[in-house]
Structure formats: structure tokens, C-alpha cells
């Protein structure tokens, strides 16, 4: 076999190829398009000296990087989740209150609710300092609730719905229900159909037909409706306080620790 045959092969392979202008244009556009791929990632920038030209971590740096990561995570964990952290302590209180609030009887009182926005810890601190609030135990809380002057009420039912009872005048008696899908419904009832939830004092006030009280109760009912409509379905966590045993203040946070609203229970 001579080299002549090989040359035939090579010359056959050297054939010019037709041009591909559309593909060329597409690739040019893609290559020059500004995009995130053309920028080094945050990790790559951080670990720049520890990566080779293909961006792969070099073995000898792996141990130091892993060690650094472990130490950093451990320290962060200690700082964030330590019981000494006041923020964590407040959040533990929130979690503890969750089960309690869910066990409340349907006659527990809810009156004024304000929407909260901001940092949970700041809200807790401000609530304590500005309103002279004191954290109370579950036993104290239950004792105070029993003495509450019922105006309207709110509770969770077994199927997860939230039901609010409006107990002011005839026109505002009723229930508001919000199911787990967030749908709200309201039923107006006669005063007689509201059973033992009312205290004797409330009944007396309602039967007196005081117009100002009626307007107030209606406003509260409307507020309750608005609150219920606006309250996210995952409203689950609460912290309760009292100021001089005249009010119970409940701060509500959602599962992501986002502040939701403040409820003041009149005593």
C-alpha cells in the first residue's frame, strides 16, 4: 500500500464544506448575548483560587473548604437557635401558644384586631414596653379568659375552619366562617339563637338596644369580617400577653414567622 492511497483519503476529507449562514448567525447571537452564564457565579468568585480552569474544586482545597463550611454552619446554628437568643425565646413562646389557642373553646373572646407589619422581635419588644404587657402562663390565661366580657368570639373548628361569633345587637348576631380554602361566609342569627356564649352582662347591654353599642358592635363585626377575609389560611402561631389583667393581647404570626395581626381581648 503506497502513500498515494492515503493522500486520496486526505484529499477527499479536505473537501470544502458549504456555508451555513443561518446557523452562524444564531450561534453568533447566542455567544454574544448577555446572559448570566457569561458571568462567574458567586460561588466561583468566592472560591476562585480553589477552582481549576473548568471551575472544578481542586482536591487539596476541598478539605479546607469543607472544614470552613462546617465551622461556619455550626457557629450560625449556635447563634441562631440558642435558647439564650431572645428572638428564639419569643418564637418558642409563639410555638407554645399555638396548641393552646387551638384548644380554646368557641366562646373565647376576640375584639380588636390590628394588622402588624415589621420585624417580629421589634413588635414583641414594642408591645411589651409601650403597653406594659406581661407574658402570662397558660393557667393564668385560661383564668383570665373565663372572666372575659364576651362581645364576639372566634375559634377553630375540628375541620380546620375558623368561626367567629358576633354577639352585639340583633342585627349583628351571627357567625362568620372561613374554611381552609379561604372562603368566607356569614350567617345572621336572632339574638335568641345565640346560646350560652353570651354573658349576662352582654345580654343586658344588647337588649337595651343602645344605638352607640349597636354601631360599635357592627363596626367590630365588620372589622372581624375584614380580618377573617384578610387573615391567611396558615395563620397558626400566637403569643399572648396581658396588661394589668385588663386585656389579653395576642400577637399572631404565620408559620414563616411573619407578623400578621394583634388581637386585644377585653377583660
Amino acid at each position, binding site marked *: 500500500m503506497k502513500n498515494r492511497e492515503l493522500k486520496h*483519503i486526505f484529499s477527499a476529507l479536505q473537501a470544502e*464544506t458549504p456555508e451555513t449562514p443561518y446557523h452562524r448567525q444564531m450561534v*453568533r447571537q*447566542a455567544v*454574544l448575548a448577555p446572559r448570566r452564564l457569561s458571568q462567574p457565579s458567586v460561588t466561583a468568585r468566592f472560591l476562585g483560587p480553589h477552582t481549576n480552569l473548568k471551575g472544578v474544586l481542586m482536591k487539596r482545597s476541598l478539605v479546607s473548604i469543607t472544614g470552613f463550611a462546617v465551622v461556619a454552619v455550626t457557629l450560625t446554628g449556635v447563634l441562631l437557635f440558642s435558647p439564650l437568643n431572645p428572638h428564639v425565646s419569643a418564637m418558642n413562646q409563639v410555638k407554645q401558644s399555638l396548641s393552646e389557642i387551638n384548644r380554646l373553646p368557641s366562646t373565647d373572646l376576640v375584639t380588636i384586631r390590628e394588622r402588624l407589619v415589621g420585624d417580629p422581635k421589634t413588635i414583641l419588644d414594642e408591645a411589651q414596653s409601650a403597653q406594659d404587657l406581661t407574658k402570662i402562663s397558660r393557667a393564668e390565661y385560661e383564668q383570665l379568659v373565663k372572666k372575659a366580657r364576651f362581645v364576639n368570639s372566634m375559634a377553630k373548628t375540628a375541620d380546620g375552619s375558623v368561626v367567629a361569633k358576633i354577639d352585639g345587637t340583633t342585627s349583628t348576631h351571627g357567625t362568620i366562617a372561613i374554611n381552609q380554602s379561604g372562603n368566607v361566609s356569614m350567617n345572621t342569627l336572632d339574638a335568641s339563637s345565640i346560646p350560652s356564649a353570651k354573658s349576662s352582662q352582654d345580654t343586658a347591654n344588647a337588649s337595651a338596644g343602645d344605638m352607640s353599642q349597636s354601631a360599635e358592635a357592627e363596626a367590630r363585626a365588620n372589622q372581624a369580617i375584614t380580618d377573617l377575609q384578610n387573615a391567611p389560611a396558615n395563620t397558626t402561631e400566637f403569643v399572648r400577653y396581658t396588661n394589668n389583667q385588663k386585656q389579653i393581647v395576642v400577637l399572631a404570626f404565620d408559620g414563616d414567622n411573619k407578623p400578621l395581626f394583634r388581637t386585644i381581648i377585653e377583660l
Partner: protein
Amino acid sequence: MKDTQTMDIERQWVVAAQQDPEKFGVIFDAYYDQILRYALRRTSDVCVAEDITAEAFMKASRHLNTFEWRGVPLNAWLYRIVTNEIRMYYRKNKYRPLSLDELYEDSSFEIADQRCIEEEAMEVQDKIERQDMFMAASALLQTLPVIYQEVITLRYVEQKKLREIAQILDKREGTIKSLLSRGQRKLRAALQRNGHTRIITSEETQKTAFNSKGNV
């Protein structure tokens, strides 16, 4: 002398592109045809060659900031990238150009005219396949192990010098020489096994048509 001048120009292109990514267009325009042709000669499949070329340029543009002058010309660096892509193509049953996949998933990127690109690829593939001589030579070359395909194509088809091949394949020149020698022996053997007369006949008959058309 010519090599030094080329390297100086390439160095200017690289510095400019490292400072302004849009300047990579100059590098692309200078080497697109060369790289696509090399990929096509190695794979004899237009679609695969186009994907490999696109992937190679995407990787080159992405890693240009890490490119350092160590005596290896930009040209050789690009050949190295595309050679690695071709290796991946032969290694896997289904070649997946990852940069292109990411690009297509990026909603901000719109392909100008996908249909034109596909039609163009089909047209070119059709032209290529009508060239029996090229297809037979390519099929014969592909019977060799990939490393021999690489050295033979780079030396005798792309007309690269031994030093350049050594830079592209990251091997010593001595190694390239022996690979070339063994590759030629293997190619001769393959030629005898597969019937060289067909290729030679094809070449004789098509030379006239090839010269008159000026392309494949």
C-alpha cells in the same frame, strides 16, 4: 514570523474580548468556518457538527476570562475545546450540548429563525452525502480509534504542524509523531479491509464535478 504576527493579533483580540464580551464577535468571525469544517470532517454529520461548534464557542466565550497566554495560540485553544466536544460525542450514545440546552431554556434568548436553520442543515447534509468520496473517506477514518482520527485529521486535513497538534492535544511532539505513524498504518489496514478502490474511483469520478462547483 507569521506565527508571531498571528499570535500578536490573537492576543489583542483576547484582551479586547476579556474587557468587552461583545468583542468576542471578532474571534467568532475569524474561526467559525474553520471550527465548523473541522467538526464536520470529523463527524460527517451537519447537525452534530453544528451543535459541537456552537457548544465549543459557547464554552470559549464563557471561559475566555480564564484564558492565559502560555505559548498556546488562541486557535489551538479553540481546536482543543472542539476536539474535546467531539470526543464526548463519540463517547456518548447521545451527544448533549449542555450550553445550548441552557441557552434554549433561557426565556430571554430567542432563536431568529429555527426553521431556516433546520432547512439549511438538511440542505448541507444532502450536499455532503452526495459526495461519496468524502463520505467514504470519513467512514473509513471513523473506523480508527478516536486518538488516531484526531492526529490524522489535524495533520493531514487541517494541515497543522506537529507543534500545534501537540498543543491542541496536550501531548509531546514525539508522541504525536508516533501516533501519526501508527495511525497511518491503521488507516492503510482499514483501507485494505474496506476496499480502497471504491474511494479512489469515487475521487477520480467526482474530481471534475468538485472543481467545477467549487464546493462539496
